């Protein structure tokens, strides 16, 4: 007869966000443990609800597999005396392995002969191994653990019962004062205690007691319930994946229902309605076919349809109270002016050493203006950027954002429109928080991009300036994310400002304000390293290899879009066989140029045709190169540099650089130096590990 095993951990309600991961861990650890214990099985199924984590092991072997293992003993020199008799050491070794000296054989390992015996490890009955499952339960990792009662154990929530069943037999062990048994519990209110006599009855027995132990099945029940309502009511329920994952892990037996709210609440901003429903109540908002919010919500009850109308009414009441609050805030907030809120910002601290948000806003205004000027945008854009910066944070002190913090920027945009601000300015208030994640949306408008970058520059330089540099996994102010945001914006908008200049501009602003703790040399160095790392991070994300990143960022941190393009050009060239002679020529120049600091060329000192030719090629190439760079055409610019390869080769073939004639030598080196400066303005090709094959 085949045997099956069931383990179930009964818990007080687990946080929904821990459940999927815990189930996954339980399954993986069980399989690993069975394999390592040499116990065969056909399948491991796993289950989870808010109140339980379980695994069902199918067709488990009744014994561990028996294996033969080679046991290595001492070297033969020690195992035998001069007469070839076995020594005490050899006897001790064999005894220890449950063998005698008659079982010994020898093998040579790295020139030394050792004695061995073959040891048979007899498989133990599975039954005797199964109590080890206790350690698997203990090893599950949760995001946050707690203690309870007088127990020393730490777990996500208290353990209340344990099932450990080997066919009909209970596998005995105890954990945190709970003894294993064959009883589990159904739904808190609809089910009862369930005694299992066979692990395979687990799913059915619990389903009879209103517990759906398969979380994917609960999910499809919810989806079907939603589809049915969509059909009946002729509306659309957009499924938010994260919400669905959470909701299915908040219930053991899902019943989907629909509730309504007063149509007048639809006048509230959509974001307020959606946040109230989704974040606060875990409801699915409902839309019409044209995508407009409708005065309905869809929710999931933990239970059956009995007295569902009471549940619906209760939920409607809660939502109504929340939306009434929202409505109250919305109306109250509109009674004041933007100036009123800006004044309040002077009382809100941004960071103790960096002053209030009001002060931060002033810096962001200055930076936005400088940035607008550096980007040579027209006056209208510049003025919009200044205004957007001035009012970028006013919504932080409104009632609505105070209550719904996730609506920062979004309410700012709304209210700005209501208060009669320019449309571009309103949009920029929302956009200046973008991107909110490593790959999140970027500001679409130029004004939004300017204020976004100014705000982030201020935060990064300010925080690093007062010693709040991110370390390891600690980045409480999100400086890395914000730096990546700046670089992504600068790249996408192809801004004509070197990245280093953005940061220098900000450092100067802080210096002019003579803020305490601001030691600019150290700050400059730390910032430089920090930005270099962020640029490298972003390039790595694009699949660029380390040496090319080094070649592009080691000398100076230029325009972000240029760095991206250069990285892509060089990544191709480094593998391109036809580029090999060109690379050799250019790198040779770079190496020789390091021998001098002088770069004044005197054409009168040129002697040979080939050096004159190289000089004139250099003059042509450098001016055309510059033109292409100005047009942002880096491919063509680099193609110009390639044109120097032939003259360089002839130069080296026909001229002796390190000649005794000082004038001649200095002049030739100066020529090479000039060419090297030109090459380096593209990238430090010396840092690249060339991989071309002929």
């Amino acid at each position, binding site marked *: 007869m085949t045997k099956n095993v069931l383990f179930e951990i009964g818990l007080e309600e687990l946080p929904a966000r821990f459940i999927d991961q815990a189930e996954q861990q339980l399954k993986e650890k069980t399989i690993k443990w069975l394999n390592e214990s040499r116990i065969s099985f056909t399948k491991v199924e796993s289950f989870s609800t808010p109140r339980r984590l379980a695994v069902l092991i199918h067709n488990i072997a009744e014994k561990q597999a028996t294996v033969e293992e080679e046991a290595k003993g001492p070297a033969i020199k020690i195992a035998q005396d001069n007469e070839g008799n076995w020594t005490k050491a050899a006897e001790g070794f064999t005894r220890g392995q449950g063998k005698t000296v008659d079982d010994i054989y020898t093998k040579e390992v790295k020139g030394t002969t050792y004695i061995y015996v073959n040891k048979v490890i007899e498989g133990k009955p599975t039954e005797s191994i199964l109590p080890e499952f206790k350690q698997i339960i203990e090893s599950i990792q949760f995001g946050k653990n*707690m203690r309870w009662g007088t127990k020393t154990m730490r777990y996500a929530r208290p353990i209340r019962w344990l099932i450990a069943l080997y066919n009909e037999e209970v596998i005995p062990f105890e954990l945190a004062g709970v003894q294993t048994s064959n009883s589990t519990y159904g739904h808190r209110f609809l089910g009862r205690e369930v005694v299992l006599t066979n692990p395979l009855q687990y799913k059915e027995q619990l389903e009879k007691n209103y517990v759906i132990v398969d979380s994917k099945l609960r999910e499809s029940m919810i989806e079907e319930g939603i589809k049915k309502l969509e059909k009946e009511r002729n509306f659309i329920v957009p499924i938010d994946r994260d919400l669905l994952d959470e909701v299915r892990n908040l219930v053991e037996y899902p019943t989907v229902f629909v509730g309504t709210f007063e149509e007048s609440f639809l006048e509230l901003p959509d974001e307020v309605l959606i946040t109230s429903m989704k974040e606060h109540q875990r409801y699915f908002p409902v839309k019409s076919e044209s995508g407009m919010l409708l005065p309905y919500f869809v929710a999931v009850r933990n239970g059956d349809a009995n007295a569902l109308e009471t549940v619906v009414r209760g*939920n409607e009441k809660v939502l109504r109270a929340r939306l009434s609050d929202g409505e109250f805030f919305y109306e109250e907030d509109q009674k004041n002016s933007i100036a009123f809120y800006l004044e309040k910002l002077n009382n809100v601290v941004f960071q103790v050493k960096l002053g209030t948000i009001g002060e931060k806003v002033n810096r962001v205004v200055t930076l936005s203006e400088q940035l607008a000027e550096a980007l040579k945008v027209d006056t209208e854009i510049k003025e919009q950027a200044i205004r957007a910066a001035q009012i970028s944070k006013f919504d932080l002190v409104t009632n609505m954002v105070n209550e719904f913090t996730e609506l920062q920027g979004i309410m700012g945009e709304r209210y700005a429109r209501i208060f009669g601000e320019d449309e571009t300015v309103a949009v920029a208030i929302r956009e200046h928080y973008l991107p909110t994640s490593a790959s999140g949306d970027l500001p679409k408008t130029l004004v939004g991009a300017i204020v976004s970058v100014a705000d982030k520059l201020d935060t990064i330089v300010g925080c690093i300036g007062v010693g709040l540099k991110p370390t390891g996994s600690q980045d409480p102010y999100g400086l890395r994310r914000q730096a990546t945001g700046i670089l992504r914006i600068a790249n996408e908008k192809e801004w004509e400002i070197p990245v280093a200049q953005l940061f220098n501009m900000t450092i100067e602003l802080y210096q002019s304000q003579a803020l305490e703790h601001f030691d600019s040399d150290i700050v400059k160095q730390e910032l430089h390293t920090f930005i270099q790392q962020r640029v490298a991070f972003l390039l790595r994300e694009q699949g660029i290899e380390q040496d090319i990143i080094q070649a592009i960022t080691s000398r100076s941190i230029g325009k972000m879009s240029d760095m991206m393009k250069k990285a892509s050009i060089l990544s191709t060239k480094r593998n391109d066989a036809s580029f090999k002679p060109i690379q050799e020529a250019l790198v040779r120049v770079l190496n020789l140029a390091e021998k001098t600091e002088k770069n004044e060329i005197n054409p009168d000192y040129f002697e040979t045709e080939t050096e004159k030719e190289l000089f004139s090629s250099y003059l042509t190439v450098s001016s055309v190169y510059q033109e292409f760079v100005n047009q942002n055409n880096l491919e063509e610019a680099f193609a110009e540099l390639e044109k120097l390869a032939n003259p360089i080769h002839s130069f080296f073939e026909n001229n002796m650089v390190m000649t005794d004639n000082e004038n001649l030598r200095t002049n030739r080196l100066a020529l090479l130096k000039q060419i090297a400066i030109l090459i380096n303005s593209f990238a430090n090709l010396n840092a690249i590990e060339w991989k071309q094959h002929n």
Partner: protein
Amino acid sequence: MNIQNMILTLQKFWSEQNCILVQAYDVEKGAGTMSPMTLLRSLGPEPWRVAYVEPSRRPADGRYGENPNRLYQHHQFQVIIKPSPDNIQELYLESLQALGINPLEHDIRFVEDNWENPTLGAAGLGWEVWLDGMEITQFTYFQQIGGLEANPVTVELTYGIERLASYIQDKENVFDLEWTEGFTVKDIFKQPEYEHSKYTFEESNVDMLFELFSMYEEEARKTMEKGLIFPAYDYVLKCSHTFNLLDARGVISVTERTGYIGRIRNLARNIAKAYVEERERLGYPMLKEEK
């Protein structure tokens, strides 16, 4: 069921669970947790079971008696059991049934909620209990109190009386709730709600409050130095309420805010430590009685 009967029912229920019924503590406080019956007694190894109604003052929530959901002063029913019993969730659900809530006709859920009170150096893990989507109880296993590890662990149940009543009585407005036959919340509390709001937001003597804060703080420190823990703790509560009044008046900037909270937290931590030491010196009297 009116509020008076709800309170009587809960008192009877938890009294039958061997909880000591005490009365509300007579110093202003923002939450039932701050009563010394919870905050101090949940420290140390001595077992403890208590239940009480706590009128809780939240000056910033005052709305002149005009908001249907928010109050300057609301009521909490507080249950504290140390060590937390294994069947505490079942007991809690039975108490809801005693209030006439039939779980088969509702949707009752335990939704993760981790509680933290930085002012008291306290933190716990647990849930907010949802009744048809409404949060009716805060259910917390204390992990840390006054900066000290809670061991054994105390469980705290905080029923929001008005919330629960608004559901049981099916009323939209808190002032329409029946307290006892013939009297509503409005009759009893509307005038004080209005006057306290007016006082808090418009009339309070700010200079005096600042001075009181310093005086209370000083007195708490001095009293504690003399080993008088309970009186010292009363002054910490007074500091906390005075701070809440100043904060609601909007005269404490965010920087200062952190500073004030830090000052109260330091006092609370020192008192927690002193309480534990004092109980140890006394030989944990309640631990002995248990044997």
